[in-house]
């Protein structure tokens, strides 16, 4: 009663703040129009398009081999998984089966990509919350994976290692040893991540109960990946619709029900363990086989629609290809995880503080080129 009177007497004025396009917590060129009352957020209105390159339109112009390298530039932290999604969709259209070797290698590299992406996220999460040192520890470990990629694929980030029908070339002879070396290294470092950040009382206070997303909302908003799984939405495409070699490995789907930033954090930490266990299972027995299933030089998909879902590092990535039988796709749509996850932001940060918004955004792990495409 008294509180209400005070609130009525103290009339505050809301004001707008442009968070972005250049803002340290936006991790790129995300612009959020915040309506703020003091420190309390009343509304978050994302304004996108600062890095929109019209990849979907470009795909309508390019051949099927060429669209693969465009997807590198979408979610550049899980570029291999994006490539894989397009290749799987095209292979579905061509109705060809790649060899087991290709499947296993794709899976291993996908998981390495996921690990690299989550490592970077861990560093950035700490940095967003003010613990700058995490960034460097994460980069130290990520360097191993980037070196593996560089040795095998020739590039560190935009690898373009997949082609429709297989892989561009075979893995490097050092690949297996280097991956094992990395696993040994990272298994000692991951508990350190926990000691440094997860247990920290300030970190716990900053993330626990912040940005709570319920399971119903997660499904309704299409929030997938660690965001959805942090809310208890079992949305792992690797489990639901297995592709590549995921049907032959044992792994747990990281599920937490709290739905707050800490749950999303824990999902990613657990996913790192699971990714390592998947690689552990596959690395020792990569089957022999062809690295490419021969396709025609000019791929023409039959008339029809092809949809492929994969689990990218940030959630479900869907590739929709509509073909009219020509050498170019008629329409390509990328259902990017970041875009759907972003739509949740306004819903769950209303009434929170600016610092909570930063913590929530950090736990969402936005990659802006993924949202803008």
């Amino acid at each position, binding site marked *: 009663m008294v509180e209400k009177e005070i609130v009525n007497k103290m009339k505050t004025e809301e004001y707008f703040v442009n968070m972005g396009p250049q803002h340290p917590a936006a991790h790129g060129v995300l612009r959020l129009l915040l309506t703020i009352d003091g420190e309390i957020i009343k509304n978050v209105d994302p304004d996108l398009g600062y890095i929109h390159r019209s990849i979907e339109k470009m795909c309508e112009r390019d051949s099927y081999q060429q669209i693969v390298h465009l997807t590198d530039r979408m979610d550049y932290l899980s570029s291999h998984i994006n490539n894989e999604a397009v290749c799987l969709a095209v292979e579905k259209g061509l109705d060809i089966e790649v060899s087991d070797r290709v499947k296993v290698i794709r899976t291993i590299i996908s998981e390495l990509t996921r690990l690299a992406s989550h490592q970077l996220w861990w560093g950035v999460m700490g940095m967003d919350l003010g613990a700058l040192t995490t960034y460097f520890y994460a980069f130290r470990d990520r360097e191993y994976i980037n070196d593996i990629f560089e040795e095998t694929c020739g*590039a560190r980030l935009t690898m*373009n290692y997949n082609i429709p029908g297989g892989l561009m070339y075979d893995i490097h002879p050092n690949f297996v040893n280097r991956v094992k070396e990395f696993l040994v290294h990272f298994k000692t470092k991951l508990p350190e991540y926990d000691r440094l950040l997860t247990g920290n009382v300030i970190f*716990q206070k900053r993330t626990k109960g912040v940005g709570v997303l319920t399971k119903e909302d997660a499904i309704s908003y299409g929030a997938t990946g660690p965001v959805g799984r942090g809310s208890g939405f079992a949305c792992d495409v690797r489990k639901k619709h297995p592709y590549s070699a995921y049907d032959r490995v044992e792994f747990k789907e990281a599920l937490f029900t709290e739905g707050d930033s800490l749950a999303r954090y824990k999902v990613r930490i657990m996913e790192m363990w699971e990714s390592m266990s998947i690689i552990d299972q596959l690395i020792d027995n990569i089957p022999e086989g062809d690295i490419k299933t021969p396709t025609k030089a000019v791929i023409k998909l039959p008339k029809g629609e092809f949809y492929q879902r994969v689990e990218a590092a940030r959630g479900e990535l869907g590739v929709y290809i509509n073909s009219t039988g020509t050498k170019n796709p008629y329409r390509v749509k990328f259902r990017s995880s970041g875009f759907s996850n972003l739509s949740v932001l306004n819903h769950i940060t209303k009434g929170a503080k600016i610092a909570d918004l930063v913590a929530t955004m950090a736990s969402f792990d936005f990659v802006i080129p993924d949202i803008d495409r």
Partner: protein
Amino acid sequence: MSYFSDIYNGIKTLLTGMSVTGGYFIRARKGSITQQYPDNRETLKMFDRFRGEVVMPHDENNEHYCTGCQSCEIACPNGSIEIVWDRQVDPETGKKKKMIDKHIYHLGMCTMCGLCIESCPTDAIVWAQNYENSVYDRKYLTKVLNQPGSKVKAGIED
């Protein structure tokens, strides 16, 4: 009671975190993870498959393997490769045949996707491992890959 256990746990976790960073501080002498880049140019070696830029190897007779089939030009997603060609009379056989005049490569437009090298039937172009590609003027990024006066190695079309 939870008030005091909160304080105790809080301090404990803070000290755990400090022990991690403190451990690294003490071991900082062992060396950093950063590379002192311009200083280590001598020892810095890229991996064999590193995609630096597209080059066309020539052998000692100044001959290359490019037949001018243009598959790289077609495969390139962003038009980084242009091939200027014409039909010339082959001095040996006397037949007219496709010869490249210039294999123009726009490094500035290249996304290092590797599709041209994949599509090349004669392995005429390969990746170079150089990593310092910056120049002071954009025009230097447009390169002619075949050396002046070079010709295609005989018998490569077959």
